[in-house]
């Protein structure tokens, strides 16, 4: 089955990931800009990071037949350094012209602080000004409800088009207001925090799969890109058809990411042929 991994931090992973993902059906990954595990001191470090994910990483993925796309942004943690953030944001538009840059992300809240909100608003404004897609990070643990609500408030106040915004890391207690407001949402599968494969399938069976994407967000912490395949296996164990799985794990990300005007992997419709036809 062909799979799109819509949130994957390739620079934190080895080539073995690419090899095994390719062997298990992954045809494309999208890499948001994120926190490096430490707070960077210089805007230039971000610029080289953006060059890495928009120029070099596609070549590494291509060795395994995987398409690589990316997003650029200042993440919420480093928004606590407004001077650095502003300097980086000023350079972001030059990356919007690159063929694999899909938009601005991941941006949003970590602890829902005033600095985070100011930099979040700045980046939403830049994205809207340059007609870019927006990818939102929502807080991981006890701050998730508050951060998600504030995210929705800010996006509404700024007049962002919900159909061009993906709010990621939703769980049972945050998915409803995001979907009801018309946004695309993502569920991130992590071994301990965020969602698990079985819970993600539960949620999709409750709400339907429209405007929902599933990702592994594999990074430098405890994470595993193959939680995506585990989730597909859970769907199949519950009797999902191949087409229903394709809709969730390939076609939904293809439809949303295509709104960038750059992601060109089309949705798939499976045509089942009879035994006689297959022998043809």
């Amino acid at each position, binding site marked *: 089955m062909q799979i799109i991994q819509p949130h994957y931090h390739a620079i934190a992973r080895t080539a073995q990931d690419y090899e095994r993902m390719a062997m298990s059906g992954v045809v494309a990954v999208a890499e948001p800009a994120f926190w490096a595990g430490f707070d960077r001191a210089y805007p230039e470090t971000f610029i080289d990071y953006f060059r890495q994910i928009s120029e070099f990483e596609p070549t590494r993925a291509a060795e395994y037949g995987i398409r690589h796309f990316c997003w650029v942004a200042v993440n919420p943690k480093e928004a606590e350094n407004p001077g650095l953030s502003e300097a980086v944001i000023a350079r972001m538009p030059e990356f919007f012209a690159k063929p694999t840059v899909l938009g601005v992300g991941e941006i949003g809240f970590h602890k829902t602080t005033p600095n985070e909100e100011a930099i979040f608003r700045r980046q939403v404004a830049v994205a809207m000004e340059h007609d870019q897609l927006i990818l939102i990070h929502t807080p991981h643990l006890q701050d998730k*409800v508050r951060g998600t609500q504030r995210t929705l408030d800010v996006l509404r106040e700024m007049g962002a088009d919900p159909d061009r915004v993906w709010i990621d890391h939703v*769980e049972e207690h945050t998915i409803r207001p995001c979907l009801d407001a018309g946004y695309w949402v993502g569920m991130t599968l992590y071994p301990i925090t965020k969602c698990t494969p079985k819970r993600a399938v539960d949620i999709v069976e*409750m709400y339907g799969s429209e405007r929902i994407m599933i990702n592994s967000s594999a990074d430098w912490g405890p994470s595993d890109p193959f939680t995506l395949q585990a989730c597909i296996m859970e769907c199949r164990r519950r009797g999902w058809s191949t087409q229903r799985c394709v809709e969730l794990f390939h076609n939904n990300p293809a439809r949303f990411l295509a709104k960038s005007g750059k992601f060109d992997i089309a949705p798939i419709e499976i045509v089942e042929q009879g035994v006689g036809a297959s022998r043809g």
Partner: protein
Amino acid sequence: MDPRSPAAILDREFLDVRCMLIETAATLDRLDLAIAEHGADGIDAVRRDRLARLRQAMSLLAAPEPPAAADPRCGPAARAEALLRLFSDD
């Protein structure tokens, strides 16, 4: 058997849930042993709050009536959402 039938779900999930419950039990045993050996002085207000939330979560799961779902799309019960809210700060 329909893979979404109650019997199929029980058959498929029994060992996983059994494992998770035993892990929880063993963790609490480990905690009690540590308190017996070292005392509870290191358990400050933040940690006491975390422990209290864990105990509330277990009570919630053991309650005869599950928390009702706020949305009809979610079915009759919403234990996972209730636990996530229990572990939220707001």
